[in-house]
Structure formats: C-alpha cells, structure tokens
C-alpha cells in the first residue's frame, strides 16, 4: 500500500513511520502545520517540524508539510473558545481528530493517491468480519481510543495505527534501536495551542470576554466569588475560592454569572444525554450492556444505551461537564460516542 504517515515530530509517529516501512508499505511522511500562534507546549513548532523532517530523512522517506492552520483555527480553536464562552468544557484534541487528522488530512491523502494514512495514536484497528473494529491500545496507560471514537467504517478502512500494539516503553525502545532522534523526546502534554506561560486563562482572555461570577451553594446562598466563570468546569472541586468544602461544581451559568456547587452525593448522576453520537459500526442495541468512559483516562463504568441519546449508568458518577465526550465500549472495542449535553 501507499501510506501517508502523519508525523508530528514526536516519538510515537516516528516509530509509526518506521513500522509502516517494516510492514513493506511505501511510506511518505507529512507534518500538519496546525497552529501559527505562540505556544511552547505541543506540536507544530518549527523545531517539531524539523524533528519530523529529520526522522523522515533517517528512514529514507519523503516528507512534506501541510499547512492546515486556517482549518485548525476555524474547526478547533474558534469552537474551543466559543464553547468556553458558553460555559462548556470542550476537548479540542477530539475536534482536531474529527476535523483535521481524520478528515482534512485523510481526504488530502486520498486525493494524492494514498491508500491509507498512519498516525502514532495508541489504539488498534482490527478486522472484524466484514468491517473494522477500533480497540484500545495495548498500553493501558497510554490508550487513546477515547479520542478516536468518532472514526467510522470509511475512515477505519483507511487508517493504520502501527504503535497501538506496543507499550510506550516498547515504542521508545524501538526508536532508540533505530537511532531516531525523537527516541527520548518528552510526551506532549495538555492542549497544543495553549502556551504554558499564561495558560488557558490568558489565552481565552485574549479571544473572548471573561466574566466575574458568584459561587452559590445548593440553597442559592453566595459562598464565594471568582473572576472568570468561563474557566470553571462542571465536576470541578479544586481551585475555587470560598467555603466550597467538599462540594463539587454542579452547574455553570455564564449568562447569570453563577457557579453552583453541591455535595457529591447530590451532584452524582446515573444518566447521561449524548449529543450527535457517532458510531464505529452502527448504533448499539437498546439496553445492551456496555462500558462508558467519560474522560480521556477515566475509569470506565458499566452502562446501557437507551437510544435517543440517553445512557444509563450502572453506578452514580460525578457529573460530566457539558462538551466532554462520552464514549461507549463493548469489551475493549469502541462502539461510538458523542458530547455530553448540558
């Protein structure tokens, strides 16, 4: 096959490229230039592009840069800011996978005559009968199947995840064995376009108006104040001033400038509403016992799909912030998922 490898300049995608070659495919590397702004954290800096280019040279494959920064701005960064402004808690990595890596990039690869794309994600794509299944990665701690839950059959048929069967230390070992310059490069952390200095608050403040607000308890009594309602997440407990005690944020109301808190027992939910779910291979049967995961590295809990966007949970859980993804699994295979509703 002809495979276009999305190379971020990190160790996982470096090894992914090497494994694609090992498997006997023809490989070309491409780095997406997604972010033009100042950021010292994640991908897309000139030095990351340089790392990807050098790894490609080491492997003897061609390398190109695709500048998708305008799409990234309109599909990921803009909506990220808008979601926060509305008091929700977006996951930009998921939107980047949905709109950039497995749409824009994949589409370009197909246009350029490639049979498949490969990325360095820790998850596994496996044949199941006539179709494809998206399995958790072999390294439990690094599993990224949650952020790939939007992949459907048309995408999975064209996606290779070569490092999904390895643990992170095996990936690093492989990189070191091949002498790749990215072997010891630290893992990327956090949101790639948010500078470490200044962080989320400064980033959002430069792009939207942040509003001060009041923290009220379950009886509506004011127990504290805060200077940016937009930065609060449902389910949050730490980082709030005032007499919060053991309480959790149960609701964020940007319009009223209100953050409601309550005791965990009252805050816990046993039912979730999922918006615009996407399925790997069709909607699951009603009442089918599944596992439900509500954050990238959260513990999955037992649950059932009720249809109509509703999920029943087998045990009460902390409230899921609107905008976070709820992902359903059958065993270790992704069934699908969508965004938690307000």
């Amino acid at each position: 096959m002809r495979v276009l490898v999305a190379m971020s300049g990190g160790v996982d995608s470096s090894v992914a490229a090497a494994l694609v070659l090992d498997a006997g495919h023809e490989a070309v590397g491409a780095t997406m230039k997604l972010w033009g702004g100042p950021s010292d954290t994640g991908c897309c800096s000139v030095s990351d592009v340089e790392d990807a280019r050098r790894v490609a040279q080491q492997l003897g494959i061609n390398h190109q840069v695709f500048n998708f920064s305008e799409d990234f701005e309109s599909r990921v960064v803009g909506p990220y800011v808008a979601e926060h402004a509305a008091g929700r808690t977006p996951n930009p990595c998921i939107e980047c996978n949905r709109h950039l890596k497995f749409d824009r990039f994949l589409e370009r690869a197909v246009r350029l005559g490639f049979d498949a794309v490969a990325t360095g994600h820790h998850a596994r794509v496996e044949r199941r009968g006539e179709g494809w299944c998206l399995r958790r990665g072999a390294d439990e701690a690094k599993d990224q199947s949650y952020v790939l839950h939007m992949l459907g059959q048309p995408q999975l048929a064209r996606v290779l995840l070569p490092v999904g069967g390895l643990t992170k230390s095996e990936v690093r070992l492989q990189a070191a064995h091949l002498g790749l310059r990215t072997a010891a490069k630290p893992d990327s952390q956090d949101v790639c376009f948010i500078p470490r200095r200044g962080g989320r608050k400064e980033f959002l403040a430069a792009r939207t108006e942040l509003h001060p607000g009041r923290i009220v308890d379950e009886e509506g009594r004011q127990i504290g104040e805060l200077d940016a309602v937009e930065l609060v997440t449902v389910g949050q407990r730490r980082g709030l001033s005032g007499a919060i005690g053991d309480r959790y944020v149960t609701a964020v109301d940007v319009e009223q400038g209100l953050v409601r808190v309550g005791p965990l027992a009252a805050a816990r939910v046993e039912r979730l509403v999922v918006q615009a779910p996407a399925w790997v291979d069709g909607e699951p049967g009603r009442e089918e016992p599944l596992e439900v995961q509500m954050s990238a590295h959260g513990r999955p809990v037992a649950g059932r799909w009720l249809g109509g966007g509703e999920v029943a949970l087998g045990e009460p859980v902390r409230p899921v912030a609107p905008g976070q993804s709820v992902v359903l699994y059958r065993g270790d295979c992704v069934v699908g998922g969508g965004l938690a509703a307000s």
Partner: protein
Amino acid sequence: MTVYLDHAASSPLHPEALAAMEDWLRHGFGNPSGSHAVARRAKEALEEARDAVAGWMGVEPAGVTFTSGGTEADNLAVLGALGFASAAPSGPGSADRGAVVVSAVEHAAVRRSTEVAAAAGHEVRSLGVGPDGLVDMGQLDLLLDADVAVVSVQTVNQETGVIQPLAAVSRRVRRRSPGAVLHTDAVQAGPWMALPEVSAVVDLISVSSHKIGGPQGVGALGGRAGVELRAQIHGGGQERERRSGTPNVAGVVGFAAAARARARELATLAEQVEARRDRLEKLILEAVPTAVVTAPGVRRVPGHCHLLFPGVENEALLFLLDARGVCASAGSACASGGVEPSPVLLAMGVDRQEASSCLRLTLGPSTTDDDVHRAARAVADAVAVLGVARVAS
C-alpha cells in the same frame, strides 16, 4: 530526471561563476583589510568584483555595499536610510521621525524591515496594488508628502513577475517628497532587466547573486552618491562603514563573474526564456481550461509563469508535481515549509481560497524545451488527479 522550474527561488551556478570561485578558492585567500601582499591580492579581487557588479547594476563602484544577500541589502536600505533620517534623538512617535511608504506586495525582507521601523516609531504607509498587481499611482500621490523619508517599491514582484512602473513612481516621489530616499528591491529584476535603467531612477537598489547564476550568501546594495546609510551590522567598519565583517571574497568573485556573464547573455537569454515561458503557459492553459494567468496583459519578466487553478489546493498540487519530478513553488513558504496564503495575491484582491490555488513556475537559463513539455504534462496530470479524486465514504 528532475525538471527544475524554481529559478526565482535559486538558480544553478553559471559555469563562469564556478570557475572564478574555484580559481580564487584554490589560489587566493586572505583578509582584504590587511596591509600585506596576501591581503592586497584579496583586496584587489574584492574591488575588481565590485567594479563588475557596479557595472552590471549601473551604479558607481563606491556606491556598492556587498551583503550576505538580498534580504540584508533590503534591511540595510530601509533601516539604514531611516537611521539617518531620524538621527535626531527623539522618542518613539515624535513627528521628526520620517515616514515610510512601502508597497503592499514587497518581499518579506522589505515588509519586515518596515515593521521594525514602525515599532521604532516611524509611520509606515502602505501602498496598495490593483488587481493587475501594479502599485496604485493615485494612492501613491496621496501618501507622498514632505514627511516621507523612505519609499520602497520593488522593481519586479517575486511571485507574479509583474514589472512595476518604477520610472513613474520615481517622478512622483521626486515631485512630492523631494527629500525622500527611493529604494527598490530589484532581486527578481536582476536576472531579466538591464539594471542601469532601474538604477537611473532610484537612490538605492538591492540585488542578489544566486538569482543570476552566482553563489548563495552574497548580495549587494547599490547607492547613489550622497545617500547616507546607517550601518545595521557593526564591527570593523568594512564596506565604507556601511557593513562590517570580513567580506566574502570568493562569493563576490562568483557574483561578479555571474553578473558579467548575465550582462553579456541577457538579450538572447530573455528572448529564449520568454518564448519557452509563453509556450509553457499556452500548453497548460490548453490542457487545463479552468486555469488562469494571475496578472494577464501586464508586463512581466520572461522567467515567471504564475497561474491560478481554481478549486485546486496548491499544497496538494506541489506534492504531485514533486512526485512527478517537477520542482515548482507556490510563491510564499512559511518557516516550517508549508504554504502560506500569499500576501501578494491577497493584496491584489484575490480571495483566500483562490489564492491557495496558485502555482509559480520560474524558468532560467538551463530550462529546455523538453522541460517545458514535461512540466506542462505533469501539471495537467496533477490537476486532473486532484479534480476527480474524492474520499469514498
């Protein structure tokens, strides 16, 4: 076999430049600033090169400042000329800082230099262009006044190859801003125009060696006598206090040989290359009926072919051309190597989407008829592939 159509980015060494450099590197060395025999020979080589480059540019040898390339020449022109205009000690924003008039389609070397000037308190006035890429003469009249210290308008656009009406610009500058220094970035004019005609109407002119068959890392700023420049690189005071640092003697020797050769070959070369460029354009337009010439009906230099392929993404087009052995460009590369939307096309009023469909093919002395045919076929093939492929879903 590679078809190289990116001569505006860098053109291969002229054999005479290579021979001259090789001869110097084998037999000569030394720091031209010294006082002994070896230094004198280096100084002689440097000054002979200066005479040749000055002759090619149409300026006095004393007015030639060798630099590390066109970019440094542009920086020295804009910031150096402003340095003297604003010599009076004054804070940012004070009225005695001269204003700069700069066209909206300049190379980044000029554009960024004016941004530095703006940050230092100079007023920067942007001169727009029409849909044809030519500077707006009506607007120029409005921008020029007694406060203007520096005007910078390119001779030829780096992307489209459009030739700016520099003589007319000059007449207006002299009339309305008689105290202003008029600079032109002639880096893309160097390969194709008789530079003395350009120098005759400006005060400062930037050129680059590797666009005309000389080595990379060498350029020059030519200046009229009496135009003062504040140095931007400080040290031993070489190049008449205008640019410190030991001169790149081998580089300027190669530059001079390339300049001599180009001056001699220009007439024939321009005619041949223009014919090939027109043939290339005709073949592509026949094969791809939706393609359009970016600035039709405007005087362009012979080597530039600049086209728009509506609906096609140039990053993808370049990828397929590269795979077919054709080296081309989209005009404006970002630091990481991706393609940025061209500020030149945006200034011409082309919308963002259409701007990202542009392709620049630039021909040079080594371009053959076979190159032209293969490139035209490759472009037609690639556009056809991109026009029909869709993700099956």
